[in-house]
């Protein structure tokens, strides 16, 4: 009984992964592979944000800082040390988690609106550190020189196909891990806090510890997304840690739906596809994007998957 939902999730993940890995065997499309690579980084980022937003009701405006931190930490480790790729990636995630622990220690006790803006300010602070610490980060030019190509189990990440395969695997495993977190007793605790933190406290939940744990976990997964982003751009740029990137993630979460686990993934797919199509058609891509957002916000009033789920619930009985 307890195994069944877990097994179902694992099966869905396995099928998705097999399909993703098989596609290039039938049809090579650089544009599609490029799209999946970008989706993988962003989807991990957006889903980790939703662990906080949808999962615990903690609206962070500064989540991009951990995406950026993961990317910079990974790229710098690869450039400055001889660590193998998985070790560098793991170290980057640990560094991001420590960063999230420090930032979280300051922010998690604040009320909703202050939490949102203090996390934003933390991100802006991080961004200005990147810009001003030129000797380490390359300042506003970004971290150049590429990421040294180290082979990994016969993978050559300079090849788009291999990068595609790596990103697909990491994305699916990362999403599965986050799914497990949100379905665990701790995930239920976060929902209690979102619904009614006072009551959760009276039931014996130590609120600050639960919040801080969520913040660190979310930061670590955003860092994993950042590692993929660093691989994709072959370096790291301040834009990764800038606020519009956080805005995009929030938008992806909202677009797909906050109450459905795969909402942020779907939102990311829509957002990136929209970006691609619109930039090809017009230079006024903000105008079109803005109108689409308005249509969603005023028309559906919630994310796509949440909307569909609610409709099914209403028509079902």
């Amino acid at each position, binding site marked *: 009984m307890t195994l069944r939902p*877990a097994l179902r999730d694992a099966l869905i993940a396995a099928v998705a992964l097999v399909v993703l890995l098989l596609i290039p065997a039938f049809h090579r499309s650089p544009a599609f592979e490029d799209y999946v690579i970008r989706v993988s980084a962003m989807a991990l980022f957006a889903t980790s944000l939703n662990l906080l937003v949808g999962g615990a009701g903690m609206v962070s405006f500064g989540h991009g800082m951990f995406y950026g931190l993961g990317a910079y930490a990974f790229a710098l480790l690869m450039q400055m040390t001889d660590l193998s790729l998985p070790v560098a990636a793991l170290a980057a995630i640990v560094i991001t988690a420590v960063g999230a622990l420090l930032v979280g220690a300051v922010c998690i006790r604040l009320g909703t609106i202050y939490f949102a803006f203090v996390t934003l300010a933390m991100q802006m602070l991080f961004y200005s550190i990147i810009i001003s610490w030129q000797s380490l980060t390359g300042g506003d030019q970004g971290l150049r020189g590429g990421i040294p190509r180290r082979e990994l189990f016969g993978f050559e990440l300079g090849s788009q196909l291999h990068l595609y395969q790596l990103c697909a695997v990491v994305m699916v495993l990362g999403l599965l891990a986050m799914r497990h977190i949100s379905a*665990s*007793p701790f995930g*239920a605790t976060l929902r*209690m806090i979102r619904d*009614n933190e*006072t009551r*959760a406290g009276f*039931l014996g*939940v130590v609120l600050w510890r639960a919040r801080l744990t969520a913040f660190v976990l979310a930061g670590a997964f955003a860092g994993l997304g950042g590692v993929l982003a660093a691989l994709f751009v072959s370096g790291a740029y301040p834009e990764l840690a800038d606020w519009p990137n956080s805005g995009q993630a929030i938008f992806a979460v909202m677009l797909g739906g906050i109450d459905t686990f795969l909402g942020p993934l779907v939102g990311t797919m829509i957002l990136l596809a929209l970006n691609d199509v619109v930039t090809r058609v017009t230079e006024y891509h903000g105008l079109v994007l803005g109108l689409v957002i308005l249509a969603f916000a005023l028309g559906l009033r919630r994310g796509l998957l949440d909307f569909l789920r609610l409709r099914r619930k209403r028509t079902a009985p």
Partner: protein
Amino acid sequence: MSLEVRNLTKAFGGVKAIDDVSLVFPTGSLTAIIGPNGAGKSTFFNLITGAFPVDHGQVIFEGRDVTHLSRAARVREGIGRAFQVASCFPTMTVLENLMAAVTSHIGRWGNLSHRAPLPGVRERAMEVAEMVGLERVADVEASILSHGDQKLLDIALALALEPRVLLLDEPTAGMGPEERWRMIERVRALWERQKLTLVFIEHDMDIVFSVAASIRVLCYGRVLAEGTPDEIRSNQAVIDAYLGTEEHAA
């Protein structure tokens, strides 16, 4: 003695909400706390459960000083409470509410390695639901429960923690006359079966005098009287300060 407070004092901005209150609640007793609005009844509960720090005085639970424990620690000690306005988790079903509470109670709320629910949790949650008669709506989302059922769920959440003292802040608030009696009968039955020390705040005098074995009257943050229903009924100070005005109003 199950629960005892000594010289409890709490002021908000210079106004003493609770002023030098000393009370004893013997193990297994069923006590009502009454008093006019603003008498400090809810504040009294908040101090016992640790929602606010006290200014002076002590809260003693089963012989132990718990005055400086956090509210989570007091819950673990065995002091449970339900709220005046039903306080539960609206987007979760009744069973999910109770499963989360049971998980917290066994100290596993931070568990990341398993899927929820942990073994045995669902069964225990169902038992708690049956204690208050909520098994019929186990899969209904809390936000769409009736008012009475939400109050029951609130009590059930407290019961999931297996408290030895249960504080109920106006369990019948906002209910019609008939519903009130049904509710208080449930509470009474619960007290008998679970062998709890139960303290409840109540405004309906008929209910208080027929259900409670013992009554404490608070007025302007002080203890005005304590005793059996008969003693309280004939206490001149209580009649003057409280019952008199209540009857005029009614």
